[in-house]
């Protein structure tokens, strides 16, 4: 009730705020302007409180809420109870809605809603938050548990939840979703500004992109920062989850998240190239407006069940609502700018073709190149569906498709980037020379493959010519472009930074250099670590016995430098110490519920105080009370319990079942198999959720111990026996050692992978993220540091921002 009230309130205030904003925009007046910001604030506050309330219900495992019941269980520790909040669609959307409303409120507070343009932008942003809130009223995260148990009496509350998806029980998964949704929420503002720009242009008001360029840049950079962090965290998670094929496997869901990221990267470059009405007047705002459409596209794919993959742990009605939102954002984000470009865009100053090599042209090439890279991913997700729809034939999209197309495009982008950086400080002639040299080196390197492992992929004669051609190229071809980028970026940084008097400009250039070098190193480490992962296995058949020994034998792993020693063997279950009170009622509770549970199946427990055996039934008294547990069944009249035993059983509560027996108010009538001692309960009330087995290992490399830890697997008994592996990873300087163990009945079957360059890869993502943080903060034109300090000095100065040269 509380939850629904909060959501209704948020929808209402959001709707009123949106309508007032659009009214104010259309009529050009400020009639209700003073009410709007508090209304937006209220919407945000109500959504945040709703999110907090849902989290609270999770923490206290309030199973009157069906969503809580579906996504957690008593045995789950506090951290993962909290993360259960966004395990399903409804909770995720609530998180997204809250964050969007907070962003809207923040923007309204800082920028105000004085101008008509600001009203339009705010109207769109608040409108989106309101749409989310309304979606939640239809598919609520506060649905009453009665919806799950229509056959039960009113007021029925299950004693335990169904559990959380095992894949989500992971520290990375605890922070990946919130960070991603922050990134998504931040993208709402650029979307609104981009759309408002076109509305304003079409209405003849001249567009707003130039005035808002500072805001746009900051919102885009911030959301890029969060989105990148989210992808990095997601990859680290998938690295540890077996079956997801390492940090990246082109699973539809991974691809779907990569698409907005690539596009956002292209948009950032496009916005850099925006020069009021002369250059990029259409493209930059259009791309800005499209980003959110792609986010929704990605989410619709993940959540609507168009592609069923490991991520589709929650697909239901919200899929349709997302598809609708997708249609609307696509029309506003892509249709509107394209229509404008076709019909209204004034012809570029005629006759002047200009030089081919110039900074705007190179940036344009970068934008298009990154766009092309994004297209490969979009197309890979789209064409199988298209193909099935058109021809009825199902085709396969493998990582060969993604890798073989993305690789040459990526090489082209890197070479362009190197050329741009070089051209910026060295001028045309020298830059062209070095470009030719590095391009030639790239082509030559593509032909040099010392062994087959250096080739990009295994291809067979049945593969298409293009795939065979690229697949046979050597990964060495990546090194010249990466070296080119690294050298030219560093050279440019050294040229620009020391001479500048402006501290913030220096910071920004450091940040730019970090981002681009970080990216180049990321690319090369990802490629090399994939190609040069080595794998070997060994079986330790007496793992259980060896774990007991003081001096356990060390097993060499064939065809590798590794050896392993088993020093621990564990079989365990969770909850480790199940409490019968979590699943069954005491006699007091049965008495208290009285008639309301008459003739319903209920689990009960108690200590046996008397046994009364009849010809076709046995009844046992629980806790010296008038509540008895009865076993009825022909030939099954005896039960294997004795007085003093703690028993638990599931059966139908029958009041006045034996009116002749004075001390018997109720009998819980159970089938023989449904009664047992608490220590070994019948299956219906067995609380074992997880059965795990693991070995403790010491891993040796070249004779020296490099690390020890445990590896094994866990089986989730009540979730389709889903199996999750717990791997042991040792992070070495040059390579990771990754141990997978299948532990069963005393035997451990171990697979050891040596994955090179993982630490360099991790470091490169840190450099990438830090670089963007520095740029976001210290950009002399649009940095947060400047925006904030200026804000305190002179209000409204942001209106006077001018695009800078860089």
């Amino acid at each position, binding site marked *: 009730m509380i939850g629904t009230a909060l959501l209704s309130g948020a929808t209402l205030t959001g709707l009123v705020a949106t309508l007032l904003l659009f009214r104010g925009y259309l009529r050009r007046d400020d009639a209700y302007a003073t009410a709007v910001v508090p209304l937006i604030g209220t919407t945000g506050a109500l959504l945040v409180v709703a999110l907090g309330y849902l989290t609270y219900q999770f923490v206290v495992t309030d199973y009157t809420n069906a969503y809580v019941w579906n996504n957690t269980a008593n045995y789950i520790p506090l951290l993962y109870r909290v993360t259960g909040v966004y395990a399903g669609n409804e909770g995720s959307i609530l998180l997204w809605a809250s964050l969007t409303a907070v962003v809207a409120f923040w923007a309204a507070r800082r920028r105000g809603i004085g101008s008509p343009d600001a009203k339009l932008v705010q109207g769109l942003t608040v409108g989106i938050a309101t749409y989310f809130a309304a979606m939640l009223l239809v598919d609520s995260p506060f649905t009453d548990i009665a919806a799950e148990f229509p056959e039960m009496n009113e007021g029925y509350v299950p004693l335990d939840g169904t559990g959380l998806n095992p894949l989500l029980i992971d520290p990375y998964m605890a922070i990946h979703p919130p960070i991603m949704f922050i990134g998504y929420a931040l993208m709402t503002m650029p979307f609104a500004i981009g759309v408002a720009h076109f509305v304003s242009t079409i209405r003849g008001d001249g567009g707003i992109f130039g005035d808002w360029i500072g805001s746009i840049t900051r919102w885009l950079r911030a959301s890029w920062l969060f989105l990148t962090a989210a992808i990095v965290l997601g990859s680290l998670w998938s690295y540890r989850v077996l079956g997801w094929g390492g940090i990246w496997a082109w699973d539809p869901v991974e691809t779907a998240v990569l698409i907005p990221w690539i596009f956002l990267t292209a948009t950032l470059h496009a916005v850099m190239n925006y020069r009021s009405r002369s250059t990029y007047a259409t493209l930059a705002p259009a791309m800005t407006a499209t980003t959110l459409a792609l986010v929704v596209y990605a989410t619709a794919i993940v959540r609507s069940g168009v592609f069923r993959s490991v991520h589709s742990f929650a697909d239901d009605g919200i899929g349709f609502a997302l598809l609708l939102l997708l249609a609307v954002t696509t029309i506003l984000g892509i249709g509107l700018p394209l229509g404008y470009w076709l019909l209204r865009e004034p012809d570029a100053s005629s006759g*002047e073709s200009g030089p081919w090599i110039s900074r705007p042209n190179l940036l344009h090439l970068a934008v298009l190149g990154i766009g092309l890279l994004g297209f490969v991913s979009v197309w890979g997700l789209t064409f199988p569906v298209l193909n099935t729809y058109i021809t009825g034939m199902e085709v396969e999209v493998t990582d060969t498709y993604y890798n073989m197309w993305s690789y040459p495009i990526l090489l082209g982008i890197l070479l362009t980037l190197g050329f741009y950086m070089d051209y910026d400080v060295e001028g045309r002639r020298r830059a062209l020379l070095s470009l030719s040299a590095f391009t030639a080196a790239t082509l030559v390197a593509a032909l040099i493959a010392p062994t087959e492992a250096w080739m990009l992929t295994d291809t067979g004669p049945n593969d298409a010519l293009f795939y065979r051609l690229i697949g046979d190229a050597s990964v060495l071809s990546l090194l010249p472009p990466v070296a080119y980028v690294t050298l030219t970026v560093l050279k440019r940084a050294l040229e620009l930074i020391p001479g500048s008097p402006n501290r913030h400009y220096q910071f920004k250039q450091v940040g730019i250099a970090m981002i681009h070098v970080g990216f180049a190193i990321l690319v090369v480490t990802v490629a090399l670590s994939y190609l040069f992962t080595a794998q070997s296995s060994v079986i330790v058949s007496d793992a259980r016995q060896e774990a007991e020994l003081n001096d356990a034998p060390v097993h060499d792993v064939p065809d590798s430098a590794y050896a392993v020693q088993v020093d621990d063997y564990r079989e365990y279950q969770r909850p480790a110490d199940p409490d019968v009170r979590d699943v069954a009622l005491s006699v007091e509770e049965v008495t208290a519920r009285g008639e309301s549970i008459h003739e319903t199946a209920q689990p009960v427990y108690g200590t046996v105080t008397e046994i009364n055996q009849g010809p076709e039934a046995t009844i046992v008294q629980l806790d010296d009370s008038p509540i008895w547990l009865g076993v009825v069944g022909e030939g099954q009249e005896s039960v294997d319990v004795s007085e003093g035993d703690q028993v638990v059983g599931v059966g139908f509560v029958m009041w006045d079942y034996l009116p002749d027996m004075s001390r018997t108010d109720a009998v819980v009538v159970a089938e023989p198999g449904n009664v047992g001692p608490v220590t070994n309960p019948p299956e219906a009330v067995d609380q074992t959720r997880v059965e795990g087995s693991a070995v403790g290992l010491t891993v040796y490399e070249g004779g020296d111990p490099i690390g020890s830890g445990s590896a094994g697997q866990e089986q989730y008994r009540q979730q389709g026996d889903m199996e999750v592996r717990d791997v042991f990873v040792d992070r070495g300087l040059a390579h990771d050692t990754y141990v997978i163990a299948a532990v069963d009945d005393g035997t451990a079957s171990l697979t050891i992978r040596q994955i090179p360059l993982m630490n360099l890869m991790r470091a490169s993502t840190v450099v990438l993220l830090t670089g963007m943080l520095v740029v976001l903060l210290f950009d002399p034109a649009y940095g947060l540091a400047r925006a904030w300090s200026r804000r305190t000095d002179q209000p409204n100065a942001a209106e006077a921002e001018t695009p800078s040269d860089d």
Partner: protein
Amino acid sequence: MTPKKIITVALLVTALGIGYYSMNAAPVLSDESHTYHGDTTWGTDVEGAMETAESEDKPVLVYFWTTWCTYCEDYNDNAYVDPDVHDRLDEFVLLAVNLDDGSPEAKQLQQRYNANYPPQHAAITPDGELLMEINGYAETDSFIAYLEEALTEWENR
């Protein structure tokens, strides 16, 4: 035409080319009544497969797969191109169930044999009785051993 427009048109054409080429080059997984895995051809019609099995007196091997499962690709690259595997597979009526295919027959099989994730194999009699199952990926050697086990089970039945 400014250089910018020429570059734009060139890259648009490239994108269209990539789209067209890749769509045609993508390996076909299925047509109306078959799916293809490695060098093997599997039926997709559940009832048809059961009837064939009945009349030819063969067990049915059900393969639960999806288009996005990496272990299924491993099967395609290893087991399903191996002649020894082919010899064993000839003893079965092959039936492939795409877990993403929403048809009621597929759902039923999926539930009956508890196939929650790809890849899984279940060898069954024409009546649907389970002979053997493989949950997840098995290396080619053990894959053959599993098939042998199912065939022995079938002979002894």
